[in-house]
């Protein structure tokens, strides 16, 4: 794999070794999703038959669980809520983060270093540290038990993260470009919106994708701040409200998990490379 003259045999052996190790990993990573889909398409009789093979669908594919989900539950409302919350919270955070990220990465003013550090520390604060007091803050703001409780609180983790990521992207843009624009008479705001932003598009796409993913997937705040069924997000609705009494109806639960994951899967498949680069930049840069 590294250098030197290798025989054909050792190359093949090395490749076989690589695949032999990777295949179990890929299996481990993907099996729960496969099982989710299989379960959602199986009828209850087979699902709860101890003699059946759980990996396969032997008595025919059915769509009853999906139909139940769409027509007998609030699932579509949850999906709509999730979409509104994700899009709004991500957009607000993006604007705030672009302004702050540009300022902290590019401008010189007293205290810029400490502000950068403050953003970094906030980035590391886990949501589970603050959910109790925040649950009271949303009560005082009068938005408790509505989707706005989440729109307002999600930027608390999105803005630090996005600012941090964008600072890295802004730093890679050559200073001369901005200086030229300023000399040519552009205002600072024009320089930011017309010169810098177009050059930072990859960073902005990345932040948008992560923002959408993190807000769509969020569980702690969504579970804590909203208790009315009609105002829940898809993730919390499926996890908490599809269980009737103490009984788990696994067919419809897994159908819900499949459909609620779908938007993320589609975005992910489309923009895989951005996810990889964003993940790397977010953790390693700085």
């Amino acid at each position, binding site marked *: *794999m590294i*250098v*030197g003259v290798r025989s054909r045999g050792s190359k093949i052996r*090395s490749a076989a070794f690589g*695949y032999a*190790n*990777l295949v179990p990993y*890929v299996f481990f*990573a*993907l099996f*729960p*999703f496969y*099982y989710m889909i299989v379960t959602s398409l199986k009828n209850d009789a087979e699902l709860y038959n101890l003699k059946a093979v*759980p*990996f396969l669908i032997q008595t025919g594919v059915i769509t009853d669980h999906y139909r139940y989900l769409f027509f007998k539950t609030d699932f579509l409302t949850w999906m709509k809520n999730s979409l509104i919350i994700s899009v709004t919270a991500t957009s607000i955070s993006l*604007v*705030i983060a672009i*302004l*702050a990220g540009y*300022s902290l990465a590019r*401008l*010189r*003013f007293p205290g*810029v270093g400490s*502000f950068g*550090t403050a953003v970094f520390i906030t980035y*590391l604060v*886990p949501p*589970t*540290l603050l*959910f*109790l*007091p*925040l649950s*009271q803050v949303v009560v005082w703001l009068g938005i408790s038990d509505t989707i706005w409780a989440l729109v307002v609180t999600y*930027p*608390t983790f999105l*803005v*630090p993260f996005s600012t941090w990521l964008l600072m890295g992207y802004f730093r890679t843009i050559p200073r001369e470009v901005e200086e030229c624009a300023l000399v040519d008479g552009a*205002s*600072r705001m024009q320089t930011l919106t017309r010169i810098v932003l177009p050059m930072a598009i990859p960073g902005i796409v990345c932040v948008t994708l992560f923002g959408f993913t993190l807000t769509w*997937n969020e*569980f*702690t705040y969504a579970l*804590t701040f909203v208790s009315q069924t009609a105002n829940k997000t898809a*993730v919390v609705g499926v*996890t908490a409200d599809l269980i009737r009494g103490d009984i*788990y109806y*696994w067919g419809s*639960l*897994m159908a819900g*998990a499949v459909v*609620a*994951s779908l938007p993320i899967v589609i975005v*992910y498949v489309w923009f*895989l490379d951005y996810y*990889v680069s964003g993940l*790397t930049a977010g*953790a*390693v840069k700085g």
Partner: protein
Amino acid sequence: MAVGQRVLEATGRARPGRLTRVREWWEHEPVFGYGLIVPALVLIVGLVAYPFGMAIYFSLSDYWVGSPGSFIGLQNYRDILGNEIFRQTVYNSFVFTAIAVVLKCVLGVWLAMLLFRPFRFKRLIRGAVLLPWVIPTALSVLAWKWMFDSLYSVVNWTAIHLGIISPPGPNWLGMASYAMAAVIAVNVWRGLPFFAIIVLAGLVSIPREYYEAAEVDGAGSWGRFRHVTLPLLKPVLAVVILFSTIFTFSDFNIVQVLTSGGPVNTTHLFATFAYQMGLSGGNLGQGAAISLFLFPMLAVIVFVQLRYIRKE
């Protein structure tokens, strides 16, 4: 803003002139710089710093949901430290974090090295490996809950048919040590891609000449790993381990969905116990005190991160 106000008052001229002056003032680098961070600052102060202060105040008062209490000093902390479940939670958190982070680290480096080799379908396999990290955790954990079902567990079914265990197999989520193993397994499943992808980026950045030099010096593959790969990965590994420790230690989703802290509190972590105490139980004071125990751990990690890692 104060300077702007004064400029406006001092000039007192007709509107166009004033506007120009405000514009000029806005063009000053420090003014513009501070201006742009105001929204972020308001957010961080109002919805992170202030709630953090509130958490401290809650923890020092007998605050219940719906009834603001009075200041009671350290009573909540005394109560918690005397609470059997809390001591179990501390123990659980350390066991969970230590085992999960070590597993993710070792397997993550191993996986990254496998992904680093040239092979076919690279993009596809990379995409598949990262998938558990991208899908909503609460939903994928739901699938795991079904896979660990007491009666229809596919894990047990497979193990029984392979002859590894005898029927009926363990009740994964109903027995203390099995439940902890299950929670750790799911955390590793979800966190491994994060390690692997970042370590992979670290591997890519290692210059190949080092390996050539090591090979010339007669180093075998283990020697190359031990003396070239590992030392050069150290900064990347340090960052990933710190990040992962924070997020594993403060985990909520996996335990809440998979076991809700059970059986008999043997998988409770700080976050899930704080949730149970503060929201399900309504005792916000003690709940806040429990979640604040996350803070010392966080502070140490932030300190190490700022002090050593960002310097490098």
